[in-house]
Structures are given as C-alpha cells and as structure tokens.
C-alpha cells in the first residue's frame, strides 16, 4: 500500500486499519509512506503491519521521496497488488509507471476534481494500465463511470472503513454546553463558514468545535470574530483519530456542509458514536441518509441560509439514533472482502493482458 503522508498516530489511520483487516485475512501487507519531518528512512512493525517510511524533503503536496520512488520501482513486481491511496499525483503516477502486477487506486478526493487538471492524468493512467479505482460512495462511482463508460468494470464501490469498536469504546469528553462538531479540512468547499454563521442564530449554550486545519483557517477565525460568535467557536486544529472519536461521542450534533465530498465515512462515524448529523444535500450525503435514515441524518440545501442550518441543528438535538440505523452501517469485514475482490479482479485482468502480450 502506498500512502503519501505519515503521522504519529499512523496506526489508527484508515490505511493502517485496512492493512490490519487484510492481514487478519492472511494477506501479507507492506505499507510504504513518506514523512516530511524525518531525516532517515525507517522500517518497523506497527500492530502487525510492516511499514517503510521514507523522508521527503518538502511537505508540499506533490513531493515524492526519492527512496520511496526507488524502492517502489525496484520491487513493484514482487507484490501481487500495489494499492495507492490519495490524490497525491506523483505517488499514484509512480505506482503506474512501476508496472506492478496489479494496481488499485483509492483517490480519497472528490471524483469531480479528479477529472480535471492536474489530477486527470492519474485516473487516465490507472485506468489505462488496467488498474481498479475504488470509491467510497456509489455516486462517485457513477461519476467516474459516466466519464469512462468503457472502464465500468474497473470502477468499484467499496464502503469506507468505519472503526466501530474504537468509536463505541471512546470516552466522551465532559462538557457543560451543547457541542456542534465539524471535522475536516478548513477549505472554502467545506462551508464551515455556514456553520459559524448559524451559531449567531443559536442559543449561547451551544458551542462549535472545529477539528481540522487548512488555508481557510485565518478567514474562518476572522468570520467568527466579525459575526460576534468567536467566544463560542473553538478551532482545535488536527487531532489524533482517537481524539476525533472522543469528540464524536461528545458532540450534540455533527455537521457536514461540504459542497463536495467523496466519502460518507464521517457521517457513518458520527452515527456509530450515537450523534445525529446535519449534512448538506449532496449526492454522497443523500446516499448515506438513504442508507441510515431519519432521524439520524438531516439534509439541508447547499445554497440555503445559516438560519436553515440552525433550525436543522435544533431539530437534530436530542435525536436518538435507533439501533437499526447503526446496524445498517457497512462493517469492516464487508469492506475488507470488497477490497480483496477488487484485488482479485485487478490481478485477473492484468494476467489476461500479460498473456495477450506474450
């Protein structure tokens, strides 16, 4: 597995969880990653998963560690499948150019953006090589199939991995007020400004906790000050996944108002934690809402007013997530089985290409 970024809490990331799930099924997994904070390469085992971590000189999104490129290129054929994660262009293209036996790619980004420069070469390269593209949402698969109708067999819907056990075990944080929680990159597309604006229409007993960081942080902080709600909005930055789970268990309502999204995993995690969700009316969220049902997920229009968001938060407060909603969430075994099926299909397709060439 190739993943572009390493973090100290790597062993609770989704890539690592997927690796563990596959390892438990007897698959030998090695994770290759890179880290801008390290100066030396390292190889270690973390919860049964072998990991190679290489230093990359720049934290820039497109930088690729030289040693990672060298190792991947040299040893690609030793692996049955190379599975690249993330929209990191250099990493994904390196995976295709290494001519692996079989290739799988999980974009971890909205397909709408992946179809345009500078990401479109990745999808073309993966599909052209015969690799499989794994999407977390059926609507994302639909977009990709519409763009590549002849490659429909290479586009797979694999439900996102939700660490149900970890979430249910997480200890809620003691709090005195209603917590509205937002988790995600601080970017314009995620419309955290709407959530901040809705706080002005809510009682002072509600506080907004924003987990995440990004370029829009300064503007969002200024927006909160400008609206006079900065005393009720907390920007906590990025926190480890275990802490995110604790916040999900603590929150009164989880809010996801992004205009574009590629995965419903945050909604699944919130529902797992027993927290009702207010989400924007986009395809991925509609898909999650139809799976989980009301009152767990309420949808608001993407162009609506912050008053509409405030009303939805009020309506969602105190809603009890029925057990039937949680039972409908796809389990990790289903996710692991689907992933293995995509690997098998990629290997099968690749072997036919090799036979045809020989």
């Amino acid at each position, binding site marked *: 597995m190739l993943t572009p970024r390493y973090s100290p809490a790597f062993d609770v990331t989704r890539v690592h969880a997927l690796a563990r799930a596959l390892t438990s099924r007897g698959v030998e997994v090695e994770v290759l990653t890179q880290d801008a904070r390290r100066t030396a390469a390292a190889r270690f085992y973390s919860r049964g998963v072998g990991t190679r971590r290489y230093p990359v000189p720049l934290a820039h999104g497109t930088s690729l560690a030289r040693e990672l490129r060298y190792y991947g290129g040299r040893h690609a054929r030793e692996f049955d499948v190379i599975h690249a994660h993330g929209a990191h262009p250099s990493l994904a293209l390196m995976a295709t150019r290494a001519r692996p036996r079989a290739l799988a790619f999980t974009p971890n980004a909205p397909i709408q953006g992946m179809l345009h420069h500078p990401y479109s070469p990745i999808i073309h390269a993966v599909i052209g090589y015969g690799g499989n593209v794994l999407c977390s949402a059926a609507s994302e698969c639909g977009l990709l199939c519409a763009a590549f109708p002849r490659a429909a067999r290479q586009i797979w819907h694999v439900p996102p991995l939700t660490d149900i056990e970890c979430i249910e075990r997480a200890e809620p944080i003691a709090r005195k007020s209603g917590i509205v929680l937002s988790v995600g990159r601080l970017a314009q597309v995620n419309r955290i400004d*709407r959530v901040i*604006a809705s706080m*002005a229409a809510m009682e002072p007993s509600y506080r907004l906790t924003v987990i995440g960081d990004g370029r829009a942080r300064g503007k969002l902080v200024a*927006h909160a*000050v400008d609206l*006079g709600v900065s005393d009720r909005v907390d920007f906590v930055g990025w926190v480890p996944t275990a802490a995110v789970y604790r916040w999900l268990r603590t929150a009164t309502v989880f809010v996801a108002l992004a205009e574009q999204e590629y995965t419903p995993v945050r909604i699944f995690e919130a529902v797992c934690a027993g927290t009702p969700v207010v989400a924007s009316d986009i395809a991925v969220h509609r898909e999650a809402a139809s799976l989980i049902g009301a009152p767990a997920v309420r949808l608001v229009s993407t162009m*609506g007013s*912050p*008053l509409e968001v405030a009303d939805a938060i009020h309506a969602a407060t105190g809603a009890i997530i029925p057990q039937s909603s949680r039972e409908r969430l796809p389990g990790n075994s289903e996710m692991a089985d689907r992933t293995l099926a995509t690997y098998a299909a990629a290997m099968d397709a690749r072997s036919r290409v090799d036979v045809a060439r020989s």
Partner: protein
Amino acid sequence: MIPTLNEAPNLPYVLPRLPCGIHEVIVVDGGSTDGTVAVARTLRPDVRIVTQVGHGKGDAMALGFAACSGDIVVTLDADGSTDPAEIPRFVAALSNGADFVKGSRFAQGGGSSDITRLRRVGNRILSGLVNSFYGTSYSDLCYGYNAFWKRCLPYLRVDCRGFEVETLINVRIAKAGLVVHEVPSYERNRISGASNLHVMRDGIRVLTTIGAERMAAARPRSRLTGSLRRLLA
C-alpha cells in the same frame, strides 16, 4: 418600526395606511418638539413609543429593534415617502423563503419621485461596490424600507448612528450569507418638512462603512478597522 424626529405633519399619511393585522407599531422618537408622540398616540392608541436618548437614525433603529416583540420586523420612514400598503408584498417574500427582504426603487415596478440624479448615481456606485465585494445583487443599497425575520437581528448588530445604517445592515446580512430578496417599492416625495439627509456627508459615511466592514471581514481586530469605526461613531 418607525424612527421619527419632528414628523407630526407626516404621521397622518403613514399610520392610518398601515395594513390590518399588524402585531405592534413601534415609534422611536428622537426628541421631537412638534408633538410627534401625541399625534402618533392619537392616530394609533396602541402604538408603543420608545424614546431615543442618543442621536441619529442608526441609533434609533438599534433601539427599535431591541423593542420589537413580533416575528417579522418592518422598517418604515415616517416622512410619508414609503407606502405602508406595500408591507404585504414584503411579508409574502419572507413567507416564500427569504430571510431578509429589501425594498428597491430600481427593481422593475419600483420607482422614486424623490431621488435626485446625484443620489441615484451615488447609490449605483455604492451598490456596485458592495455587490463586487460580497457577490450580492443589490440594486438599491441605500433604501430603508426593509422587512426581515426577527431571528436575523443577531446578524445586524446595529452599532452606527447615522443614515449609513441601511448600508451597514445590507452588508452584514450579505456577510452572514442570509437569503435576501428584493421587492419593488415606490418612494414618494416627503410630505412636509426637510430631510436630515446630507448627500455628500452621508455618502462618505456610507463609503466609510463599506470600507470598515470589508476590513472587519479580513482583519477584524486591526487598528485600521478600529479607526474607521471610530470615524463613523
């Protein structure tokens, strides 16, 4: 909500034309000496009088908003230039999903027999400036005939004194992302008396307000923002 300052001759053309079924009428009086309050009480015994201690339209509106107890707030001028009979049009727009409804003299069906060419040009320039900053489509920035849900009050936070209050409100609702609809409105000549509006002075105040709000959005705690705000106070 009607701010007044020596509007006794004009109130007989305003208060009786209010539609039926209004929850309350608030008159914010800025110390009139011509019997405005008595006239208001005679015309409408159920009127609520709020006495303004400070000065200026902005200050009056802030007081009036704080006193409102209904679900919908409508701001009217007391000089007879705005027609209370248009209120149902505003309320209908609110019922159709708007958070804030702006009257516009330049929307199709609107008009004005009071506006001068200089004010028209100035209004256009200032509206264009706000539209370019905030992505809005205001056609009439400096018109005080508005209606909104009372829930919008936390976004208005009126903290200015003068005629720039309408611009301030329009900019703040745009920054908050509230849904704004415009409805056509006809502005008639003032019935009697002289306006307190001074074109150049108030135009500069409006421009300064736009600048201050723009700076506040970018750097809310900067010294320049504070200076602009003190200039307006």
